[in-house]
């Protein structure tokens, strides 16, 4: 009973935290002064003449919603990857998906013969998918043994570096597009608008629901492949479905706000630490924590160099890099 009580109170605490940070995100560090009360009034008694109300509803709200959903997508992508590979270091940014998706988007948005041929989110998914496939093949990830964890990460680092180099080359060749691509590579929510939100939320929501559906299979997969097969899991189908979900989640997030790393790496660990190993519990919790973390990073991204903006991706890297080092040192690779 005390275990249930602990889980419920932790869950309520998280939801409350999410609500408060969302509220704070809607008014904090605005060039035109917006107060916390303005935010509430914008929802309850909207005044067309009030600039503060308009900022909240037209600029801040789509930005907040995008941050929440991006956080949930990246965190659940990381959770699924760690579950599928049974590797605590697996995450979209570590295993090359982010860098591949970035390359895919850089290619379609700069090269004239590709421009308009593919939508940016499809390009991001394709790029991420190809990069991930290469990492998996190089790291022989489908045959998991304790000493192959390091190999998979090394393959991820190598492919990420290759993709990053190619992305830079593409950007240099097409200089007039460079500034836009660079901002986007750093991952920023500054350009999140209602228009983008409309194409982002359906893909993201469907993928998140799909991710929840995968949770029971991920649980059984943690017992090892032989046991999973023995317990009636169709391994090939689960892995294909899981990989497709990861690509949709990461592709949607990256095409909405650019390349944001470390959420997918850190959040699954926090969720497991708080709520244990059951994916049916820690996957939805990871979504909430991911949403919370990205929203917090977005809020801070406006504060660090106010009134200028720092990309949220940079803020997350500041938190994420030390955590990554901690994980590497804690678990012998």
């Amino acid at each position: 009973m005390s275990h249930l009580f602990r889980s419920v109170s932790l869950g309520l605490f998280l939801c409350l935290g999410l609500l408060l940070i969302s509220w704070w995100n809607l008014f904090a560090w605005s060039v035109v002064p917006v107060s916390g009360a303005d935010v509430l009034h914008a929802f309850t008694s909207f005044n067309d003449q009030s600039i503060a109300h308009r900022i909240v509803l037209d600029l801040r709200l789509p930005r907040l919603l995008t941050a929440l959903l991006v956080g949930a997508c990246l965190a659940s992508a990381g959770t699924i990857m760690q579950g599928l590979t049974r590797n605590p270091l697996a995450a979209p940014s570590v295993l090359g998906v982010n860098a591949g998706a970035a390359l895919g988007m850089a290619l379609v948005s700069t090269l004239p013969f590709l421009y308009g041929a593919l939508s940016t989110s499809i390009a991001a998914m394709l790029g991420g998918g190809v990069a991930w496939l290469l990492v998996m093949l190089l790291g022989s990830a489908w045959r998991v043994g304790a000493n192959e964890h390091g190999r998979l990460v090394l393959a991820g680092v190598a492919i990420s570096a290759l993709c990053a180099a190619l992305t830079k080359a593409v950007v240099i060749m097409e200089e007039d597009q460079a500034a836009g691509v660079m901002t986007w590579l750093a991952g920023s929510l500054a350009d999140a608008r209602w228009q983008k939100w409309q194409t982002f939320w359906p893909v993201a929501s469907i993928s998140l629901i799909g991710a929840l559906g995968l949770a029971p299979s991920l649980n059984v997969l943690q017992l090892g492949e032989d046991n999973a097969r023995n317990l009636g899991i169709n391994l090939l189908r689960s892995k294909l479905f899981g990989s497709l979900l990861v690509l949709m989640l990461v592709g949607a997030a990256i095409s909405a706000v650019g390349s944001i790393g470390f959420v997918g790496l850190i959040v699954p660990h926090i969720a497991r630490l708080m709520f244990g190993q059951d994916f049916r519990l820690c996957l939805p919790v990871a979504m909430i924590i991911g949403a919370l973390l990205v929203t917090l990073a977005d809020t801070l991204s406006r504060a660090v160099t106010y009134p200028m903006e720092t990309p949220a991706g940079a803020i997350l890297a500041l938190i994420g890099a030390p955590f990554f080092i901690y994980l590497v040192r804690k678990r012998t690779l």
Partner: protein
Amino acid sequence: MSLSAHQLSVGYHGHTIVKKMDLTLPDGRFIALLGPNGCGKSTLLKCFARILPAMSGEVNWQGQNLHHYPSKQLAKALALLPQTQPIPEGIKVKDLVAYGRSPYTGFWGKLSTQDHQIVEQMMQQTGTYELRDQLVSELSGGQRQRVWLAMVLAQDTPYLLLDEPTTYMDINHQVELMHQLQALNKQGKTIITVLHDINQAARYCDHLVVMKAGELKYQGSPEEVLTSAMLKDVFSLSAQIHQDPVSGTPMCVVED
């Protein structure tokens, strides 16, 4: 109805271990797979449990190739306890045993009242009920083996495949396990187990299958199979066969 292999070859990385084997395992029996190390007992068992694909030939069940059945349906028919098991992190005994019910669970892995009852019953049967709130990773090797056994039993399948289930167990737990398996067999389950101890096999099992170098050499009742000639042929061992004074089953005693 029974499980059978037809011209079955199985192996790893292009290396054939079980060679063109024809074997029918009779239903409702307590079957022991015997043979020297590396003869392919475990490999054969894994193929029967569809963990390893056949290189050629096939495994049939109810007259159809095993690999044509959907995964869930097979998981309700055949359960395998592998020889070595991973040590899952952060999973409690009761949760691990409950995973045995996964082929039956409803929406989102929800356990029914009946599932909970079976899980509890299997923990009691294997003597792991007292450990239910402990982490699997904190148990001893023998305790962990019994927890995995409870999980496989919770799968509630008519066929039970075990790969050296008595490894890591104290002698009292070994005997207890063999009695349990006998009782399960009486309830109608077909039990197929790899065993190292020939006398244990002859005492508790009612059908022995002896392999050597990937081929089937002998099969039949313990009285038919356990002979000096078989031990000489398969294990290159000189031994006398006596009658077990307690159970009356054949028993081998090694000569100098």
